[in-house]
């Protein structure tokens, strides 16, 4: 009888100890956010352009993680991003939208003679890549520009133009070899 009681008490004691330990750990080492969101976000190109229909790359990543969005909505990322997402999430690759076909990388260029210094584009830029103050000429920091086009619409005098980024010797890539294989008969 006593043996049985000891056993029950011992097991109950252990249960309480481990319960407390786990409860403490759950609070102490709480995972703030779904880590998969971070992983998705690191694949997205961070243009913050909103072409996917979400407010930026992170909201889109959250929507993908929640299963609310497809993985083929990112035009700047193109096929590579879609494939990487499919790989990460174990989903089937989907063809990109017709309008979501990748375009050459662009940068915004402000026509500095036309600019009236209204600061609307400065406020629109998601990565603070436009420099300028009220009634002062604005300019785009080319190396920081992600080519999201968000500054084009707000401009009241249409002085912002998207120009394709010119290829230099440093950014040039060897083309994919064209191989026409001839089979021997």
């Amino acid at each position: 009888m006593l043996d049985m009681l000891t056993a029950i008490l011992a097991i109950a004691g252990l249960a309480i100890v481990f319960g407390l330990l786990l409860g403490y750990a759950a609070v102490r080492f709480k995972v703030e956010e779904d880590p998969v969101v971070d992983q998705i976000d690191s694949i997205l190109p961070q243009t913050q352009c909103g072409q996917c229909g979400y407010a930026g790359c992170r909201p889109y990543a959250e929507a993908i993680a929640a299963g609310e969005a497809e993985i083929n909505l990112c035009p700047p990322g193109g096929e590579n991003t879609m494939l990487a997402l499919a790989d990460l999430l174990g989903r089937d690759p989907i063809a990109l939208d017709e309008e979501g076909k990748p375009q050459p990388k662009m940068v915004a260029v402000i026509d500095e003679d036309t600019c009236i210094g209204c600061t609307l584009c400065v406020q629109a830029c998601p990565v603070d890549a436009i420099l300028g103050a009220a009634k002062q000429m604005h300019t785009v920091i080319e190396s920081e520009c992600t080519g999201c086009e968000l500054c084009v619409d707000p401009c009241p005098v249409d002085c912002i133009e998207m120009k394709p980024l010119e290829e230099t010797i440093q950014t040039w890539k060897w083309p994919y070899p064209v191989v026409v294989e001839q089979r021997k008969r």
Partner: protein
Amino acid sequence: MSRQLSNFPGGLHLPGHKELSVGEAVAAAEIPNRLIIPLHQHIGAAAEPLVEAGQKVLKGEMLAKAKGFVSAAVHASSSGTILAIEDRPVAHPSGLPALCIVLETDGEDVWCERHPVEDYHSLDPSALRNIIRDAGIVGLGGAGFPAYIKLNPGARTAVDTLILNGAECEPYITCDDRLMRERADEIIAGARIMRHALQASKSLIAIEDNKPEAIASVREALERLDIDDIEVVEVPTRYPMGGEKQLIKVVTGKEVPSQGLPLDIGVVCHNVATAAAVHRSVELGEPLISRIVTLTGGVERPRNLEVRIGTPIEELLPQAGGLSANVERLIVGGPMMGFTLQHREAPVVKTVNCILAATREMDASRGPVRPCIRCGACAEACPVSLLPQQLYWYARAKDFDKVQDYNLFDCIECGCCAYVCPSNLPLVQFYRFAKTEIWSQEREKKASDLARERHEFRTARIEREKAERAARMARKKAAVKGDQGTGDNAKKDAIKAAMERAKAKKEGAGTQPKNTEDLTKEQRRKLAEAKARREKALKDQAPNGASGGKEEK
């Protein structure tokens, strides 16, 4: 031959075709009317221009200085006037233009002031390296890595062996061969300077055994100069013996680790032409403004020319007798590792060792491309023991993770695999495609990380500004509310306090002038006199009326 030589895997015995151009001695090429001197002739950052259009410069004057650690200076190859600094076509596989300094030569070819070092032994290695850095010397074997960096072992490693690379394994090229035959003294002098800069314990010159004249010339020079601490090592003729890692393996028996540097195993390897340039920069004070270029293949008079850096390639061709009729394209470098020149007006730069005119027959020797038959000949030929076939499949499938798992970045692009491929697959092109694609993805990743950081910062800033504005509004609101209720006591108190202060000030004023201290004797005396006068006047006035008191105030 006391040295026990090792071996590297794979490799090929290629027809040399060196006899074409090796016969004639090196001659100085004509100075062109216009020199086009690119700012980026080396691995690393482009040089930063020091001159502007319209400026007159002398031969050897620095036109652009090294920018950053991995960079090299650029000098005027002759005297003349700077016409412009603008984008010009350069010798690059892409055919894209790059920033160049255009120099119109005056034909006088006047040197600027040179500062030769009398005794380099008296300089410490770092001062020596600075001279070599400012002389714009880069690896002249073809890669163009700034030489001074490879002469800087740092504190972490002691350099055991300095190897001078005179292998020149690629077919057709004979510029190093001619240099060793004609200027062995310069190479030896350069080797001694390099050895001093590195504090290396051994130094040797490795030459392929198909260049007996060069070997004899260097041996003769060593004997004549009575130098016994530089060894001449005859290495077997096998492509790519001149590859840095392959040569080190053969000469020392040690293997450079994957993705590592020769310095990791205590070896430093320089081209023989680089050594000669080091000698000229230190002991003659001449920066790197010319190099020997082999003009060969389908030209009427194949030969080696000492060419000023910046000479347009098309102006060199007549000096080699002009092109044969059946020349299809020009190759910069050798037939194995060179690339097709897109613009013939592009200039010779520090890394151009050979201009090979490829004839139709040479190009036609490769048959049609057929599918890979998995024969494995490429793996046997690979001097780095890679699996070229696997690399090919993954590069072709654009599987860039897998292709790196198979050590794509250890590939030296020597072309042995493509040479032996019975299906004539352009294997190296696939590897180059994969390499540049991976670099591009890395750049994009970096850019997107930066964009994320900036976006997050911006979001945080907007949040913070919002919170601050809300707090400010709340404070204002509270103040406005306070005026009608309890808050106005404080205001009243403040007004009261201010009035009291003003009153106290008024009372205090006039009773005692504050500026009566520190007066000179003279001033005191005058003050006393004035006082006495006033009192006297007051006394006189007093019986007449009571207005005096008012006036006094």
